[in-house]
Structures are given as C-alpha cells and as structure tokens.
C-alpha cells in the first residue's frame, strides 16, 4: 500500500476501536452491568455456602466449602406453616395454575382480537372500549367483588370456586383479557385485509379463516402473549394469596412464607436458593423463547 491510499479517502472509512467515545460507552456499560449483576452473584454464592460461612459475613467471597444442601432443603424440606415439603409443593401448584391459565387466556383473547379486528360487528367499538377501561382499573378495587362473584357463581353451579385452583385460573384469565385482546387485535389488524377478503371469497367462515389463514401467520404474537402470561402469572402474588388456600398456594406465596418466617433462625442460604428456584421459570422462558421469538418473527415476515 502506498501512502496515497492512507491519505486519500477511498473505500470504507477506517474505524478506531479504542476511540474516546467507545471507551466511554463500553466503560459505562460494563460498570452498569456489573452493578446489576452483583446481587445475582451474591445470591448464587450465598446459596452455595454453609450457614457457618454465611454468618462469617464475607458476602462477596466465593464459598470455601461448596454445598448443594441449601438448594435441596429449599426444594424438598423447608417448612411453611404445617407443611414441610419445601417449595416443590408450591412449584407444582404454580404449574397447575399456570398451564390452564395461559392456554385459556390466550385462546380466548386471540379469538377476541380476531373478531374485533376482522369482523366489525355492531357494538364492537363499544365492547373494545369497555375492555380497555378494564385494563386501567386498579386490581385492588376488584379484589373483594371477585371473591363475592366466585362464591356466588360456585354456589349457583354447586361447586367450590373461591379458594380453588379453578377459581384462580378464571381470575387470571379475566385479568389477562384486556391487554391480551389489545395485543391480538392490533396484530390481526396489521395483517393485510385483502387476505381476509380473499378467504371470504373462498367461502371460509369465522373459524376456518381463524384457524387456517390467521393462525398460521400468528406465531410471533402467540409467543409474545405466552411470554407475557407465563411471567405475569408465575410472578403473581396478590391473586395467589387471596383466591387460594395454604395447601394450594402458588410458589411465590410459599417463597414469601419461607423467607419471612419468624420462627427459628434466618437461613439466608436456603432463602437465596428458594428465591433463585422461584425465579427460574420466567428466566427459562426468556432464554428459550427468545430464539423462538426471532424465528417466529422471521417466519411471519414472508409476505403473501
């Protein structure tokens, strides 16, 4: 290379990696990332220490004696109230709440959104407005009325709703409805209207258009709705503590009871392990569906 190429601009502009702005930018990012990662580090190391070591107080040091004991205790033997089978009970309760709630709320909301976006029936605007108002009413206002409604409906049909998993599933489904319907409505509205018209000319009805034309194009929005619902329902504490009973408390409520138990010594290592265990499901969902999400978006990007 001659000197001329260095001084006469030609081709791509050279970029310096260690320029002042870069150092500043990445320096700041590193510091901020460390700041947020530090508590996680402390939690993980503490959960792998023995109680003796925890009491010694060096919270930033690595365990001298690694142990998996606190995790096992948190999962299988920690006591909440009269039950001493650890978080495993709460985990399975949460799973039993989560799966039907997610499936039910997404199924209903997707049909709602589809109907609102594509079949502009009379009163659709009004219905949508009511639903949106529902999204802005604070939960606290509705807590007690819902207790009454669950009781009354249960009595009417002759089975228990208040204080059962079924009741909680219904509550989650209802409270997920406004935001999910909005999500699906907006997504279906963004799909080309002519596709819907073409399907009508092809003689497809409400459900056939939904299942055979709309659904195959909607993977991305279903993944988004799933992430939203799984994390929301898994992390829910308020409804869990109000609408269920100790035997069927979800994991979050049980975690609280373990961590905040006033009897005996505070077992920090067990508490840390329990907290990490409880947070594991949303974490897995984020990691697993991130990829799925991208794939979903890419698949949906094929234009007709």
């Amino acid at each position, binding site marked *: 290379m001659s000197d001329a190429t260095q001084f006469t601009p030609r081709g791509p502009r050279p970029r310096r990696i260690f320029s002042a702005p870069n150092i500043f930018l990445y320096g700041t990012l590193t510091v901020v990332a460390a700041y947020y990662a530090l508590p996680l580090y402390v939690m993980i190391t503490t959960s792998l220490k023995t109680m003796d070591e925890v009491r010694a107080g060096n919270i930033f040091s690595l365990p001298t004696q690694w142990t998996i004991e606190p995790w096992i205790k948190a999962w299988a033997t920690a006591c909440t109230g009269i039950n001493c089978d650890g978080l495993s009970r709460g985990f399975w309760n949460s799973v039993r709440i989560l799966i039907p709630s997610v499936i039910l709320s997404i199924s209903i909301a997707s049909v709602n959104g589809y109907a609102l976006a594509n079949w502009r029936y009379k009163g659709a605007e009004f219905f949508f407005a009511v639903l949106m108002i529902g999204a802005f009413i604070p939960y606290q206002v509705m807590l007690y009325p819902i207790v009454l409604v669950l009781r009354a409906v249960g009595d009417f049909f002759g089975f228990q709703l208040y204080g059962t998993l079924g009741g909680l599933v219904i509550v989650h489904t209802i409270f997920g409805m406004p935001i999910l319907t909005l999500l699906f409505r907006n997504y279906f509205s963004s799909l*080309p209207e*002519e*596709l819907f*018209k*073409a*399907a*009508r*000319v*092809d*003689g*497809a009805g409400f459900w*056939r258009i939904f299942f*055979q*034309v709309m659904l*195959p*194009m909607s993977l991305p929005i279903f993944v988004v709705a799933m992430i939203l619902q799984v994390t929301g329902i898994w992390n829910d504490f308020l409804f869990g503590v109000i609408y269920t009973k100790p035997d069927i408390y979800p994991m979050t409520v049980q975690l609280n009871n373990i961590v905040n138990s006033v009897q005996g010594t505070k077992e920090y290592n067990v508490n840390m392990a329990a907290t990490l265990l409880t947070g594991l499901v949303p974490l897995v969902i984020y990691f697993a569906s991130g990829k799925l999400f991208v794939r979903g978006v890419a698949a949906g990007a*094929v*234009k*007709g």
Partner: protein
Amino acid sequence: MNTNNFSVQIKDLDLAFGPVKVLRSLDLDINHGEFLVLLGSSGCGKSTLLNCIAGLLEPTDGQIFINGENVTWKEPSERGIGMVFQSYALYPQMTVEGNLTFGLRNARMPKAEIQKRVARAAEILQIEPLLQRKPGALSGGQRQRVASGRALVRDVDVFLFDEPLSNLDAKLRADLRVEIKRLHEQLQNTMIYVTHDQIEAMTLADRIAIMKGGNIMQLGTPHEIYNKPLNKYVADFIGSPSMNFLDGEFKGGAFVKGDVRLPMKGYEFQAAQTPDQAVTIGIRPEHVITGELVANAPVKMEAKVELIEPMGSDTLVWVRVAGEPFRIRVDGQTQLRNRETLTIGIDPARASLFARESEVRL
C-alpha cells in the same frame, strides 16, 4: 324479469360510510363475456363498487344481480365470482396448490374434481412447476398468476380484478396485461377490472366506466371515450399527454378566443341546434397537424415554440395559442428549435367542445 340478459347488473346502488357517500344511486349493466374496466383516480369509488359486487361490502341501498339472480344479500362465496386482489392476498403458509384449492376444499368438493380443476388452471396459467412452492418463493409475476388461478379454479362466470398489476414494475405490468387479455380471450367470461391506469383500461376493455365521486362519468368503448368524451372530466382524464383546453366563445358556428377563430366545420354536435354560449374547446396534442400535412388542414395558425420535451418515439412541443400554453405531439424525428415559429393545423372534427358552465359535451 328482464335481468337474464346481463351477466352483472347493478341497480340504484348507494353506499355511504357514515356521512360520506361513496356511491350514489349507481346503475350499471354488464354483458356476458364483457371486459369492463372501472377507471378513475383514487377515491372515486371504483374499488368500493367492486367490493360491493363481490359482497365484501354491504351497500346502503340498491340491488346487485349476477346472472339474473339477486345476490344482494348473498355471501361472497355464493355469488359465483372469483376475485384477484392488488396485493394478491395469497395465503403465505399454504403452498400454491393449497392456495388454489382452499376455496374448493371449503366447498367440500370431491378430491378428483379438485385435482382436475387445479390441473386445468395450472396448465392455462403455466404454473405447474410452482404448485408445491410457498408464495414467499415466487416472483411478483408468478404470484399474480397464482392469484388469477385462485379465481380460475372456482370455475365462475364473473372475474373481479382489483388493480391486479399495480404492484409490479412497468415492464412486467405490460407483459401481464397481455396475459390477462389473452386469458379473457380464452375463457370468454365476464371480467370487471378496477384500475387507475388509463393504458390498462384502454388496452383491455370492451367498455370503460370512468368514475368520479361515486358516479359514472361516462360508460363507453375505449374508442368512444377517447374520441368523444361526454364531459370535460373524461376528456382531461383520458389521454397522455392530456388534452389542451381553451376557454372561449361559441359564436355563429365557430369557436372564438381573442384573434383565434375556429369554424367548427365537420364537428358532430350532440344537438341539432347549438346556441351561442361560453365554451371550452379541447384539442388533443396528437390531433394537432404539423409538417407537410398542414396544407390540407381546415384551420391553420402560427405558433412559436417555447419548450421541447423529447420522449423518444415522439416529441412534445409547448407553444402558445391565443396566449395560452398549448401542447403539440410531433414525430420524434422532427427537428425543432426553441423560439422557432411553427405552422400548425387543427381539424375541428376531432376536437371536443364543452359548455363552459356544465362542462358537458356540445
């Protein structure tokens, strides 16, 4: 009822979105096997009309007959129509074959019959090698063909096209235009075709309906519409470069403006007697006579060249007539210079005369 003579018949059709009237008591009769083009600028109601015929929009008032049957309250799929959309609207997750058969499967047609129809449509449109592909893997032209195929397999009498070529580049558009015309020649069924492109309209149509503000301004063959526009709007809309208009007076059988006087000899008036009045005359740039032929022209005048726009095959020359800018189309090989004085000839028989107030042809 005397409705069986028409393939599609629209009676007194009204459509309003709230206070906005999109179609106003519209009547239209379309013959069997006719290629009718609905032409107009955007917002004129042409697509709305097509959607009404398809049953995708509910009219506020009026009736629609297809093959003599009142289909006003029928579902789109029950009307015996096939439709091709501007975006093609192919189902992206189905193969080409899936797209073609979707409507037939919905109608629970026997498999053998579906096979037969798909094979026929694929052969006519030459899309056999594409049947197992998804729409995403097709080119624009191929998608357009599949969209036509979806209408074709339905084996219906009426095809509706909603600006089917607007999404394509100019060259492909010209190619597919010919294909659609060929398809019509082959199938001989009724086609209603919406476009804003006057070239498409002129080349494809048996009859053109020019629409504006929810009304049909003129319904006629391309020849009629080009040569005898019924009003100034149609005259202005059709033709590229567009018609020259001069405002003047009609006095004693001649058009007069300033020192320009055009005796309207040979002009076919709509009425036997046309009183003197304020008028607008329309003269197409390509109907202005130049060169050696000027000698035989009924009316001659001098004009100074102001601007020259060469377009290859021909050249557009801007001159001034009676103080107003005036376009003339001359052969592309003509050598012209700016500020040169040109002798031009006008044949009043080929001009169009409109009443100034009502803009209606005289």
